[in-house]
């Protein structure tokens, strides 16, 4: 860590890791089911809530239900990648594939970034897809007052922005845990747990405990952005080659 020459990150290596991960996910039934079923749940529940509203709802009641529905949708980027990210390092350790990878010229920064991107890309696609489905269903079938309330920039923009930010948080927290624990299941439980705190803040705003002002939203967003970017370096430093290997006993 004393080296002063700027590190050259290899796009080839990062791309190789992302491709490998995505291939591996697609063939892992546990991953496909948790990435497929959970999001559906979090889009169906809010839609049901909104349709239960009936036509007369208005004012604070309407506001609350819609706020809650959008919050459900934010559970998707927070929770969906948590399981995969928590598996990422300790899982490879457990199946014995980490050692051969670490004998190649790959840097830990590349390895971890590749892992993070591989969790981030499908999460983003799924979360936006579910949000799209939600908007489409609401736009087509909900009452006019609901439609007007949902299709406001102040509703949609935060949703679009917080989706990647929350995903980033969950992914780095999950990878950090995955680099330090030596048991897949512990990693996944902890990973799910730590994906929630930023969501708690968001939900306090959703329920009106904290007044959701533009300023506050920006501060929270900026904080998450800084964390997401800084986390890469921090997690890379936590990733200790020797510990990764020493844990493995043949």
């Amino acid at each position, binding site marked *: 860590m004393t080296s002063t020459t700027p590190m050259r990150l290899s796009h*080839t*290596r990062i791309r190789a890791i992302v491709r490998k991960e995505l*291939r*591996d996910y697609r*063939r892992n039934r546990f991953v496909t089911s948790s990435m497929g079923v959970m999001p559906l749940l979090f889009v169906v529940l809010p839609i049901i809530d909104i349709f239960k509203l009936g036509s007369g709802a208005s004012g604070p009641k309407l506001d609350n239900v819609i706020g809650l529905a959008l919050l459900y949708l934010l559970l998707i980027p927070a929770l969906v990648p948590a399981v995969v990210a928590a598996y990422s390092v300790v899982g490879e350790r457990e199946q014995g594939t980490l050692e051969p990878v670490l*004998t190649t010229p790959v840097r830990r920064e590349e390895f971890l970034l590749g892992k993070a991107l591989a969790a981030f890309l499908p999460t983003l696609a799924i979360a936006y897809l579910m949000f799209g489905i939600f908007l489409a269903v609401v736009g087509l079938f909900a009452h006019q007052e609901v439609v007007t309330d949902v299709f406001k920039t102040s509703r949609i923009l935060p949703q679009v922005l917080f989706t990647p930010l929350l995903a980033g948080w969950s992914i780095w927290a999950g990878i950090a845990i995955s680099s330090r624990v030596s048991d897949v299941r512990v990693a996944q439980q902890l990973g799910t747990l730590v994906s929630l705190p930023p969501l708690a803040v968001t939900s306090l705003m959703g329920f009106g405990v904290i007044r959701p002002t533009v300023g506050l939203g920006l501060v929270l967003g900026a904080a998450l952005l800084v964390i997401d970017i800084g986390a890469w370096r921090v997690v890379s430093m936590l990733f200790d*080659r020797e510990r990764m290997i*020493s844990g493995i006993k*043949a």
Partner: protein
Amino acid sequence: MSEIGTSTPVPSSAPAVEVDGLTKRFGARTAFEDVSFAVQYGEVFGFLGPNGAGKTTTVRTLGTLLEPTSGRATVAGLELRPDNGVEIRRRIAVMPEAPGLYLRLSVAENLEFFAGLYELDDRRARIERALRAVNLTDRADELCRTLSKGLRQRVGLARALLSDPRVLFLDEPTSGLDPVAAREVHDLIETLRSRGVTIFLTTHRLAEAERLCDRVAIMNTTLRLIGSPAELRDRLFSKSVELRVREPLPDPERVLGALPGVESWSAGPDAAGTYLLAVADPDQAASAVARAVVDAGADLLALTPSRHSLEDVYLQLIDTDVEASSR
């Protein structure tokens, strides 16, 4: 298309691996201590030792996975230092004890991933070549999950060959393989050797080392012996000839004591009428012994130079260690 090994650059006279007083401890436990040796380019170097001798730890240390506690080493021309890690790993390849394949990926997909990690240009051609080298071309699209242990081992070997490494570390490449599969791996290593690939091979199969290695080092936490298999045999065992006659010689000292080429003699351990003769050159001594015995009027039953295998050397050494540690 060029074959595996032919494009490996062979830098002049500097050794491929040079280790000087290297030590690795895990807390209070010493994995290996004060180990020094050098491996030349083009050499197949055997690293032998019992379970827990420190073979795997040595490979991991030289492969930059573990940091040595003390001592120095150069690997493929670079000093073993954390900031040389990436460059050292670019020049070598390691096949760990367990092949560690992605079981949900096909053979070709596994290799493709590693070709990417090595940033190889002509990936497709390289993968094809590596698969051809281990005779797996027709299994390229099979999922690794469906492969037998022997085939997985071969995929691991193909993966290690992808980057045309200057030094190839193989950690017990035949462990757990049946004799036929082990034989195939041996043949492969011989092919690589004939193409001048430098191989660092750990094993506890003595016959394997004897067949494949130019030189071997016998390890047991510290380095015990190093040399060609033949040298080790000579160094540990004096050459000898075993003589068997029908009736014990009445005065063996008169018959055997003054023969040219016979350094000393002793009565054999098993039966009366057997004698062990320490000699400088077994072939030359044998004819002199035969003549003397016949001249003395005894019936010669057998005259055999005793052959020690590398296994005898190894067992002799390790037994000494066991005795020493139980004292």
